[in-house]
């Protein structure tokens, strides 16, 4: 064991960086790691102060063993990303109290960089990224501190040096980021263990969408090519629920749908589809949902995206759960006619209701159907019922018992979109009309700065699709019969008098939509976030391909590599010029600059100024060697000395310049 003692500057930054780097991981880590982190830091400080010694070999082994067992219990598994990140962090913390050699300190620093990196696997937002770069700067400061003289005790300067280094590295990094050939994953990696994400779920039970609308989290952003459709057209379909069990609507068994449609292999059901009107093209950046469905407007075309297909009920399904931001491009026809005929099988499935549930709703249906001339008339009558009776659109409906559709339709009459969509679909099926519930988002907020529509969790919505012979599937939104302003201008205006919009989030930006300047700032920030998501986070192999093809024309990997190296080294050359350039003279005062010019002339005359030679000594030596220059040399020297030691007076510089000019004339005349 050598007595390696880490420099103070380095240790200070190492401890600060350690806390900073581990901090954002804490919510995911078992609580005892906080104690471990603080304990290791304290221990390290005590070692530095000479109070304690490093832990012995057995203590260390015990700590590692306890840590691994603790992690195993904390996570219950060593599969997935979280436990491995936990292990990495534990190693990072324990290595802190095992720094016998300088090499150990380097390992701590390298681990620090890696721990900082793992945060990007969880959060890719701008604030989080800025924070991580701050951490990286601190780790770099620790690295610099390690190489400084022990007497150097200015941690702020060390941090500044780290900042300079990283800022100089920045342009090179950007070049690599854009040009480094991106390739597809080499092997599948263990992904994050599922975290609960706010968002539309796989099923619909009365109350769960209302709960969702308490959140202002971003669901996705959609950028339209050309202008965005009107608000009331923005029905973002997520999934289709056609099975009712108890009071829960769920998806049909996926096996029933058959093959998914892809751009090169359309589904057979796409043949009997008529697309009308204009096509709407848009790209969506979907926030991680931990689910398999993508959102789109009807009627979408299949998209070319790895592992994503169009399901028979016109929505996208991804084979892998969406665990990181996903960007996809869709084109949809807002006007369409599909499935003019429905097979008896599907007709059966779409009219199926649980045996003997909600008897009063069935009676209501029979009564209304008897008073209607045909199915379309029946649909209108049901909607009229919602509209004319005292139905209330509310975020806080009463709790309903069993046969909830009965209680809702005939007793409480207070509900949120899922109550209306669910009960409406029930009434349709009860009358033998094929119907299904669609869950997704409705509306969004148009951001004119970034020209995109931003959809948040409180835009979650449920509606119904009914099937009519010859017309196919038609969208019917029963909520619009109760609260048309929900469809026209969003949730907030629909529940305006209730004062319950984001009631649990007193500080949400969204609550201040009426305040103009707050809205302006919010839209700006959102637009910046959107550009970040589309250009930085969303810079995928495909995106790189299309961007570079636009600017470079056709290219292959070899050409790209060459361009990358050329760009990288040209930029490095510029940085070298900045780092190594003779800027030193610029920094000097005008006086010194002029004097150095004079020294330079003399050097050309074969009279270099010696190291450490003062101006007057130098002048003396020059005068002894070249007496003919004595007058002018002394003039320059006097002017310089005076300018240097007198108060900084501009006329002094002028006098020096004049003297140097005199000196030049003299030397030229000789």
């Amino acid at each position, binding site marked *: 064991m050598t007595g390696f003692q880490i420099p103070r500057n380095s240790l200070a930054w190492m401890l600060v960086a350690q806390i900073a780097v581990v901090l954002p991981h804490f919510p995911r880590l078992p609580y005892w790691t906080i104690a471990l982190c603080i304990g290791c830091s304290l221990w390290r400080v005590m070692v530095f102060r000479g109070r304690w010694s490093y832990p012995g070999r057995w203590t260390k082994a015990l700590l590692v063993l306890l840590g691994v067992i603790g992690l195993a219990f904390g996570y219950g598994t060593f599969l997935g990303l979280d436990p491995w990140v936990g292990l990495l962090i534990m190693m990072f913390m324990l290595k802190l109290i095992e720094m016998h050699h300088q090499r150990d300190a380097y390992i701590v620093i390298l681990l620090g960089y890696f721990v900082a990196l793992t945060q*990007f696997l969880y959060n890719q937002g701008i604030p989080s990224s800025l924070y991580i770069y701050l951490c990286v700067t601190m780790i770099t400061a620790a690295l610099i501190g390690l*190489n400084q003289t022990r007497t150097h005790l200015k941690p702020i300067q060390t941090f500044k*040096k780290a900042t300079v280094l990283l800022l100089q590295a920045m342009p*090179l*990094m950007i070049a690599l980021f854009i040009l480094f050939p991106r390739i597809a994953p080499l092997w599948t990696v263990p992904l994050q263990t599922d975290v609960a994400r706010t968002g539309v779920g796989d099923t619909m039970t009365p109350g769960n969408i209302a709960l969702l609308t308490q959140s202002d989290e971003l669901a996705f952003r959609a950028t339209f090519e050309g202008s965005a459709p009107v608000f009331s057209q923005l029905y973002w379909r997520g999934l289709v629920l056609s099975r009712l069990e108890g009071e829960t609507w769920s998806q049909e068994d996926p096996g029933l749908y058959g093959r998914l449609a892809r751009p090169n292999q359309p589904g057979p059901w796409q043949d009997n589809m008529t697309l009308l009107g204009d096509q709407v093209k848009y790209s969506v950046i979907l926030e991680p949902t931990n689910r398999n469905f993508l959102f789109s407007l009807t009627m979408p075309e299949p998209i070319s995206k790895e592992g994503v297909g169009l399901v028979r009920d016109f929505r996208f399904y991804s084979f892998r759960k969406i665990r990181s931001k996903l960007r996809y491009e869709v084109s949809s026809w807002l006007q369409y006619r599909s499935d003019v005929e429905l097979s008896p099988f599907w007709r059966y499935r779409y009219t199926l209701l649980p045996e003997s549930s909600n008897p009063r709703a069935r009676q209501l249906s029979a009564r209304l159907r008897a008073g209607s001339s045909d199915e379309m008339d029946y649909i209108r009558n049901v909607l009229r019922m919602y509209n004319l009776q005292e139905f209330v659109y509310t975020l806080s409906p009463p709790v309903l018992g069993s046969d909830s559709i009965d209680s809702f339709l005939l007793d409480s009459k207070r509900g949120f979109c899922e109550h209306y969509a669910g009960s409406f679909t029930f009434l349709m099926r009860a009358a033998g009309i094929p119907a299904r519930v669609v869950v997704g988002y409705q509306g969004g907020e148009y951001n004119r700065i970034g020209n995109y529509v931003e959809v948040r969790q409180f835009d979650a919505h449920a509606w119904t699709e009914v099937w009519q012979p010859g017309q196919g599937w038609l969208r019917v939104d029963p909520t619009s019969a109760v609260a048309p302003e929900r469809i026209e201008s969003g949730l907030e205006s629909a529940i305006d008098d209730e004062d319950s919009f984001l009631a649990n989030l007193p500080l949400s930006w969204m609550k201040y939509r009426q305040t103009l300047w707050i809205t302006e700032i919010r839209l700006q920030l959102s637009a910046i976030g959107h550009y970040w998501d589309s250009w930085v986070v969303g810079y995928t192999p495909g995106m790189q391909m299309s961007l570079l093809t636009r600017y470079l024309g056709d290219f292959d990997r070899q050409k790209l590599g060459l361009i990358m190296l050329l760009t990288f080294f040209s930029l490095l050359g510029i940085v070298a010029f900045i780092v*190594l350039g003779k800027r030193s003279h610029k920094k000097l005062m005008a006086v010194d600059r002029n004097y150095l010019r004079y020294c330079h002339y003399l050097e050309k005359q074969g009279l270099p100024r010696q190291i450490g030679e003062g101006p007057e000594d130098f002048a003396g030596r020059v005068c002894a060697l070249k007496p003919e220059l004595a007058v002018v040399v002394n003039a320059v020297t006097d002017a310089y000395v005076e300018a240097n030691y007198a108060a900084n007076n501009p006329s002094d510089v002028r006098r020096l310049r004049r003297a140097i000019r005199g000196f030049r004339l003299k030397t030229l005349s000789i």
Partner: protein
Amino acid sequence: MADVTSAFTGSPRFQNWLNKRMPPASSVTLNQRNIFILPTREGLMFGLLIGFMILAGINYQNSLVFGMAFLLVSLLMVSILHTYRNLSGLTIVAGATHSAFAGEDAEYTVILNRLGARTYEALLLGWNPELLQGADLIEDEEVTLKLFVETSRRGRLNPGRMLIQTYYPVGLFRAWSWVDLDVSSIVYPRPIHAGAIPSSSAMSDEGELIQKEGVDDFFGLRTYQDGDPLNHVAWKSYARSEELLTKQFAALADRRVWLDWQFFTGVDTEARLGRLCFWVVQLDSSNDEYGLRLPGVEIHPGRGPAHREKVLTTLALFELGETGGYP
């Protein structure tokens, strides 16, 4: 930190190449001709880390992970420039040298000088790569360093090329130079304890013998110093106070001593020189006048630092010829 390159620096071909590229000079300014730069083991580890990061970026298809990996690649490249910068433009000037007795460390003064606004940090320099001395030039324009070189035997020591290196700022690269400052110092023979000076050695300028051994007039007492003749120790006073004191005699100040090669028989050259060296030190500290007689050399008695240096240098270089005993 591991010295990745020192393995081949000892080879004669490399030395020849170095001598051509960087001829010995008392003042050397470092530039692209004489600075070498290579990654350290930590730099290679750092590269490996970046490799893992890029792999993580590919497998997680995470742009920000790529971004950070690329930032570290760029940091690595920029650090080459900074490490190089931390040597380039630095002027190293040879200062005074101090002689040493064989077995001691010879001292060389080296002056580091910066011109202009560029600062230098965490420079390491010295002749022994195991024991480099650190220096900063941040506020000062010039620093003076005392560097030591181990000596083993007498002669003219040319310590050869001095290593100057730096890992600053990030330790991922090592920039270094081997600078030959064209300095040398005299290494005196290692003094060998030889007891009292033979009586026959004390003689007058004219070669006339002085009868007494310089014990005539008691002058005073002073603290015992290594090398004082034991018969001059005031034993009585020692018994009283346990303090070793040496009796001083007035006659000593006047004595002129010849140190002669012929004092010894049956002893080899180095042993003779070592003993002569011992007496020189003794006589000098007691401010005696002494002369030296070696085969073919005779230095008349004298005293003072210049005389001491002349005598010791003669002893150091005796029969060594041009090379000075050190390769």
